[in-house]
């Protein structure tokens, strides 16, 4: 399995696609998490993502290892953005390529669910009403 893991200011779906597309794989599943302009109906101005980078990379590698043990996946991408992010910006991209689409869906959903539980990244929400949470 080929793996691309990165944490940086700006991430794109295209770089994930470029990494996973291969004539050997039939099914590619991509998840893109975008900054929403509201949280529970409250308008959001921006998010700020902070990261314990060395540990975050290590936890992302652990997820990749779990995926490799569990599913027959050929390529896997995990990208996370940090810093100020505005509505419409991409915060996270997960991409998986496999010969069969069912496992690509399962693996992609497992990765984003697990990343949100274990990877030490924190977001702060800046609301339009001035509150920060």
């Amino acid at each position, binding site marked *: 399995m080929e793996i691309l893991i990165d944490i940086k200011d700006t991430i794109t779906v295209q770089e994930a696609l470029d990494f996973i597309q291969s004539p050997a794989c039939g099914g590619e599943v991509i998840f893109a*998490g975008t900054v929403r302009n509201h949280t529970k109906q409250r308008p959001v101005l921006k998010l700020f*993502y*902070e*990261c*314990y980078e*060395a*540990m*975050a990379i*290590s936890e992302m590698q652990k997820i990749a290892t779990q995926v490799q043990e569990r599913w027959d996946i050929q390529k896997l991408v995990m990208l*996370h953005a940090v810093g100020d992010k505005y509505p419409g910006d991409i*915060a*996270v991209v997960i991409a998986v390529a496999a010969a069969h689409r069912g496992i690509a869906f399962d693996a992609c959903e497992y990765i*984003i669910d697990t*990343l*949100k*539980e*274990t*990877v*030490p*990244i*924190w*977001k*702060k929400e800046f609301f339009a009403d001035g509150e920060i949470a």
Partner: protein
Amino acid sequence: MGILLFGVAKDIIGVALLEKPAQVRDVASLKAWLYEAYPGLRQLKSMMIAVNRTYAADSQVINEQDEVAVIPPVSGG
């Protein structure tokens, strides 16, 4: 040795790096000391400790050269 602070734990304590008291020798005693010294941390839904970039159990010993971090509830993605 310093203790790294992130997210809301950093906001509550007000600094990004804390000195570890000499009497703190394991994760359990680190947590007890943190809750005592910074009662605001008790409002966190969870507080994990990472030792050398790995989530650590309460029983884990902390050595002087270890990289220790306070991990409040994560919210990436």
